């Protein structure tokens, strides 16, 4: 009972904030709704038992990436930017058509898989000590190479971002 109310209210908040992100007039309001969306998604992760992922979502996504967006919005709005409206109607119709098609596909997949449940692969035993230790052990033993590649990617992205955004080299 508690789980159902928790899930449905969070789902409503996530989708509501998502709609506000794409429909707000002011860009700063869009960014604020995005932060609220990310915080609600972090709560959803907590409900799923992924506590490390929830904290990383708040720390990195809501506390780092969206701050970067806010910085860029502020730096751009220093000169004042009006947003021109193209032809929103045709694009909106195309968008709704595409999304209805994909939603129908996904619902078909869900209904099909509910009727034909497949084999459950054997899950490896969870390590003692909880979620963070399990994720950490997996990251550093089985998935060490993707971990190192991801850190190289972040290093290259950092250097590239500094280089691209500098005023003069």
């Amino acid at each position: 009972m508690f789980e159902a109310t928790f899930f449905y209210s969070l789902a409503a908040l996530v989708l509501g904030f998502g709609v506000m992100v794409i429909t707000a007039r002011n860009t700063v309001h869009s960014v604020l709704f995005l932060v609220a969306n990310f915080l609600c998604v972090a709560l959803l992760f907590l409900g799923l038992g992924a506590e490390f992922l929830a904290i990383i979502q708040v720390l990195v996504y809501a506390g780092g990436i969206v701050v970067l967006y806010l910085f860029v919005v502020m730096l751009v709005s220093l000169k004042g930017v009006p947003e021109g409206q193209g032809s929103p109607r045709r694009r909106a119709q195309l968008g709704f058509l595409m999304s209805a098609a994909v939603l129908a596909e996904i619902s078909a997949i869900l209904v099909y898989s509910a009727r034909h449940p497949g084999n459950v692969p054997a899950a490896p035993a969870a390590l003692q000590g909880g979620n963070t230790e399990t994720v950490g052990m997996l990251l550093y033993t089985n998935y060490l190479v993707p971990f190192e590649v991801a850190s190289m990617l972040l290093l290259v992205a950092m250097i590239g971002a500094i280089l691209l955004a500098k005023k003069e080299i």
Partner: protein
Amino acid sequence: MLETYVVPLLKIAVLLNAVLVSVTYMVLLERKVIAWVQVRLGPMRVGPYGTLQPIADAIKLLLKEDITPARADRWVFTLAPIVSMVPALIAFAVIPFDREARIFGYRVPLYIADVNIGLLYILSITSISVYGIILAGYASNSKFPLLAGLRASAQLISYEVAVTIMLVSMVATAGTLSMVGIVDAQYRSGLWYAFVQPVAFVTLFIGGLAETNRAPFDLPEAEQELTGGFHTEYSGMRFALFFLAEYANMIVVSAVATTLFMGGWLRPFPNVGALSVLDFVPGWIWFLGKTFVFLYVFIWIRATLPRYRYDQLMRLGWKVLIPLGIANLVVTAIVKVLL
């Protein structure tokens, strides 16, 4: 029923009241200590030796006129002080004041929640409080606060990286992320972690100074530099909320430093049996005493040191503290593997 709902609510009520009263009295403490350092007396008129001064301040701020700048974003203008204050308050949820105490015959643990990712929780809450400053600078619809807000938040997120790396080496030493677990690890090892990891201790304190916009890193709110910084256009209770948020952040940083480095609620030399005569002092008194020492050092540093320039500040954060943190982490890892 009683234990899952009523006791935590009572604890939250008591803790919030205690925090809000102590941040108002921290204003008085700061003014008095800085005055004594400068060989003068500080507030003396209101109440005996000025002890009712915070109440006078609160009444003045509540009764001030509520000014909003023209063409400012009303929602964001009101939201910014709230976004500053709320993370400072909810970070107290994982701070352990004592393992347990007997109140009216019940054994009550003196912390609101012991999540097994307590330290990461505090870190993520600190990174949310950056938004208050950026939004305050933006919502004032004026050039000075906007630039000041951007500079202040750039400072905050730079020092966040240094603090995070230091906290990782602390987690490696203690072996757990939960705050109660870290104090237990200090009890088992018999030494406060300030002696095991002195570099991390000093660096975390410096990072905490920068995170809370305190001197000597208080350029964003220095009046001589940016006409008041990001809270230029704020007056009355909203301005008060910014300052209370800063003091509450100071208390959070002091409490975290106490838990991580000074043994939390443990008495000095917790494993030495000869000193167990000191055990009549309950653990939370030790905790509050140590936190008070840290707060005093915060105020002492403010009264003594001059302000950093902004580029010196950023250089310190990126070029000194982060390499030091990584070196500390590597040395900690090597020592943990070898021993």
